[in-house]
């Protein structure tokens, strides 16, 4: 070992270390650089003297920290505080977001509620849902402003009932309701059933939770637990200007009971109402849809499609709709005149005895029409065009088939009914002409049903004439 480090013409350790740290004056730095360019040994020493990554650049600080955290290494120590800071920041951010979310939910803002409700479909079945609301006798809002919170994880999906006005106790319509009304008017074939019960006139009503555009019925007991009544039709202003206690819709017809147990009926989707005199004793507390007669020719799927009380569209509504869409059929055909010329602009309405939906569609310039998304089952196809006799036929559609039904309209002739049956194996339906055959039984398969507070049940097919059941 040499007496002094690299004695002679080699720079010593002091010079080399100062060179590495750029602590040399310029003239000495250039000398050292010139020597290093020519001296492999000194280059090697410089290369070996470079601080490694795992060495602490700040000696004093590291020694002081090791006294506190003697088990920590520098690398881990260097990462500890950034990691802790990042974790703390993330926790704060999450808690802040949750807080904002809860606050927004608690406000019950209509837009937020509607978005939440729309984005969280489907909801649990209404029949099993018993959501309390906090009613008070004088109509004041309960201290528990958000009683639905913490239940079934759906609390955040539900809007908080708006504070009722002191005079009438009527809840203001909420935006989700308006949205549902629009949907209802645009698609009147959708039926809904809503039940609101056990709530005095002065009590606050909860805005409904809209799930996929289908209303959800929540049965509410007249007990201490406040009812969370979710009605898509509650935005229809009843003539009494009271909130609806129970409401049900079928196609364009709406039957509603207000909080004073007055029954109202509308056959134009809530635009006009008329008061129905009650033949029963006591008070009507519940109105609902009931179906007891389903044609045997219909498949269960068709029956499901025909009868759509809202209560059946709770949790499984979306599944049913998607299932129906997967098995839907298409009806197409051509409308001609007796001479064989096509009739453009003819109106084609496809309906069955319950839904009365599917159209009307207009034939195109080639006289063709297409009606999509029809569930398998029996339908009445009605074709009419200006100057021609109306024509009506019955068709039975099979699943996932394109069914063909051509029409030849005549002028001045009596109505004819053509029955088109499309077996499942057939690619095109076989039409059998039946002259002057009456249409299939048009007995209403769906009827309204009223339940009174005395337990009586009354039924009606048109919503206006009631029979004791």
């Amino acid at each position, binding site marked *: *070992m*040499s*007496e*002094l*480090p*690299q004695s002679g013409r080699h720079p*010593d*350790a*002091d010079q*080399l*270390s*100062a060179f*590495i*740290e*750029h*602590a*040399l*004056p310029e*003239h000495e730095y*250039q000398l050292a*650089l*010139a020597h*290093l*360019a*020519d*001296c*492999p*040994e000194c*280059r*090697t*020493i*410089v*290369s*070996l*003297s*470079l*601080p*490694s990554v*795992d*060495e*602490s650049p700040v*000696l*004093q600080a*590291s*020694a002081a920290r*090791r006294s506190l955290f003697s088990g920590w290494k520098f690398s881990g120590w260097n990462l500890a505080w950034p990691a802790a800071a990042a974790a703390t920041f993330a926790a704060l951010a999450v808690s802040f977001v949750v807080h904002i979310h809860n606050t927004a939910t608690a406000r019950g803002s209509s837009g937020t509620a509607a978005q939440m409700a729309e984005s969280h479909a489907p909801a649990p079945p209404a029949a099993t849902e018993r959501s309390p609301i906090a009613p008070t006798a004088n109509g004041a809002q309960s201290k528990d402003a958000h009683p639905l919170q913490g239940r079934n994880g759906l609390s955040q999906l539900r809007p908080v009932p708006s504070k009722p006005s002191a005079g009438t106790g009527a809840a203001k319509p909420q935006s989700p309701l308006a949205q549902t009304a629009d949907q209802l008017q645009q698609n009147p074939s959708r039926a809904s059933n809503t039940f609101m019960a056990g709530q005095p006139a002065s009590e606050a009503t909860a805005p409904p939770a809209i799930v996929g555009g289908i209303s959800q019925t929540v049965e509410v007991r007249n007990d201490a637990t406040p009812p969370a009544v979710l009605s898509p039709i509650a935005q229809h202003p009843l003539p009494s200007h009271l909130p609806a206690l129970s409401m049900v819709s079928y196609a364009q017809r709406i039957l509603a009971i207000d909080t004073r147990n007055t029954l109202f009926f509308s056959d134009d989707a809530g635009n006009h109402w008329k008061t129905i005199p009650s033949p029963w004793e006591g008070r009507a507390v519940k109105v609902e849809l009931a179906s007891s007669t389903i044609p045997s020719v219909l498949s269960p799927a068709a029956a499901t499609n025909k009868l759509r009380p809202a209560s059946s569209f709770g949790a499984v509504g979306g599944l049913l709709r998607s299932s129906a869409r997967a098995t839907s059929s298409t009806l197409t055909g051509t409308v001609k005149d007796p001479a064989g010329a096509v009739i453009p602009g003819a109106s084609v309405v496809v309906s069955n005895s319950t839904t009365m939906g599917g159209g009307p569609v207009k034939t195109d310039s080639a006289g063709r029409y297409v009606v999509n998304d029809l569930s398998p089952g029996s339908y009445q196809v009605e074709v009419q065009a200006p100057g021609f006799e109306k024509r009506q036929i019955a068709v039975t559609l099979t699943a996932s088939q394109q069914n063909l039904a051509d029409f030849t309209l005549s002028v001045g002739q009596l109505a004819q009914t053509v029955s088109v049956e499309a077996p499942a194996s057939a690619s095109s339906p076989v039409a059998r002409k039946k002259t002057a055959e009456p249409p299939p039984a048009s007995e209403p398969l769906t009827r309204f049903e009223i339940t009174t507070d005395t337990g009586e049940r009354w039924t009606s097919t048109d919503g206006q004439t009631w029979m004791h059941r």
Partner: protein
Amino acid sequence: MDTASSQPGDLVLPKPIAQESTANPQPTPRFSGLPLSLIQELWLAAEAETCGLTAEEFGMTLASVGAKLNYGLPPGTLPDPAQEAAFLRSLRLSELALAHSCALGREVAWQRFLGLYRAPLVQAATAITGSATLGHDLADSLYAELYGLRELDGQRRSPLASYSGRGSFLGWLRTTLAQRHVDHHRRTHREAPLDNVDALAPIPTPEPISAELTRLADAVAHTLHDLAPEDRFLLACYFLDRQTLLQISQTIRVHEATVSRRLKRLVADLRKHLLRNLQSGGLSKRAAEEALGTDPRDIEINLRSLLQISQTASFSDRTAPETAPAPTAASDPL
């Protein structure tokens, strides 16, 4: 500098005398050529007292360092007092005091040294040697040397006295470790067993070299000789020592992308200079370009001998297997 016989408190620095009048200014009291006030200031700033170093000893150390380095000025330049003060204030005073107090054998300084530098020193030695065992051995041997077990003329000599305080003390320790490691490798490398020495092979007769190759070799040597020291340093680090761009960038304190660009530009300039030298030697441009396309294995050029004055192989080359030849033009992509 030999201050081992000095003891704390041997010399009491006289307090600065206040100037009584501006008409007859008193000369500033000085010690070892430095103003006492400056020494006092630096001594306090260095907290040298905690290392067991008196102001006198610290003043002598400062004076020794300043005189050795000419206060940071080029040789032949006479520093003024302001330059002296500025240079001394730029030093790492606390580390300088600790190192020199350790060189004087002060126990309190050694305790502090061990507390602060023991672990980093072993860590650096392990990083240099690549082995924990060798690293501990290297660190222990350096401890013995630093403590001054070596005596010269009956006095203890410690390499710590050579620390000037310009760089960090840890950097100085790391560099000293690297020096000792190189020295150790060089010493053990020479102890090759005789069994492995083969009989001398007959010296091959050199084949006659064509005039064109001779001309090309001369042009390469001339071109490399004209390079600036920093360019030669870059070429040597990259092509001879096989250092990475990151290592070079850490050495010269520039970004590795800058190193890469400079190397690329340097190689391109070398080619231009080679062409120019060949053309100045009588070759046409086409012939010069053809000469550059000569197979490098046909040229007897030792770039190492051209790039560096020292003819000893680099440490990295000496750690390589014996069969690995020194890089020549054939292996260096210049």
